[in-house]
């Protein structure tokens, strides 16, 4: 194991370090929600959760946020890189068994079944990134 650490290229060590830092952050601090203009409802790159401004200002926000908070907790538990790898396995499994990436995905099913308890105690909103720019044009 000592040799393994010494021989790892620095870029890999950096990625592992940032992976630990992200997981550590998720244990001690709330999700960082970034509001952006995009077609998808949300993209989770824990600890950042990118949410479409359309969703943010609608009634869907509560459900989408709970769903993304589930992914946030999974990322804290497994660390983001490991969760990413598990998600590839889960999506492949879902694709092979149901023909869809999400309908039989065990990571996402776990979240869906717990939506009622997945209310983040706090979130940090990093702002509507598009609107201030639009306003300045008016």
């Amino acid at each position, binding site marked *: 194991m000592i040799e393994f*650490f010494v021989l790892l290229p620095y870029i890999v060590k950096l990625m592992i370090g940032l992976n*630990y830092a992200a997981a550590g952050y998720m244990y001690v601090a709330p999700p960082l929600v970034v509001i952006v203009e995009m077609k998808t409802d949300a993209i989770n790159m824990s600890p950042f959760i990118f949410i479409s401004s359309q969703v943010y200002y609608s009634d869907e926000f509560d459900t989408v946020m709970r769903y993304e908070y589930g992914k946030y907790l999974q990322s804290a538990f497994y660390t983001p890189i490991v969760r990413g790898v598990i998600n590839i396995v889960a999506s492949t499994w879902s694709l092979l068994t149901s023909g869809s990436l999400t309908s039989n995905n065990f990571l996402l099913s776990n979240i869906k079944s717990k939506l009622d*308890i997945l209310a983040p105690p706090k979130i940090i909103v990093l702002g509507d990134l598009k609107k201030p720019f639009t306003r300045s044009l008016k």
Partner: protein
Amino acid sequence: MIEFMINLPTWIKLILGLNLLWTSTFWVMSEPIVIVADTEYGAFNFANIVVLTSEIYDNRDDWRAYVLAHEYTHFIQSALHTPLINGPMYSIFTLYSKYKTGNQWDANPLENQATYWGHRLTFEPKFVLRF
């Protein structure tokens, strides 16, 4: 797993989070900060920090090379086990070694590993502070 995470007490989340954040510094920096200071101990390691006396650090001999590599190995042990696990693990092995041999090194697997790699690794520190 989700219920487990939600039900974790805040103080445990804080300890786990700080441990992971601390561990990240080992990987991002990838080597310890060496402090050259005259202490009553020749050399020791605490997490990201290695303390050496100037007598050891300034003599460019095999002993210096061995001590630096030995302490670097302890740094790597902390990076791999994370400080939260490595600290208590070292303490348990120290007690075991003291019970078995009367000192903290001879039957301590972490010290034996550091001694083994101390003769095989080369480590020239980039971050050196002098006091």
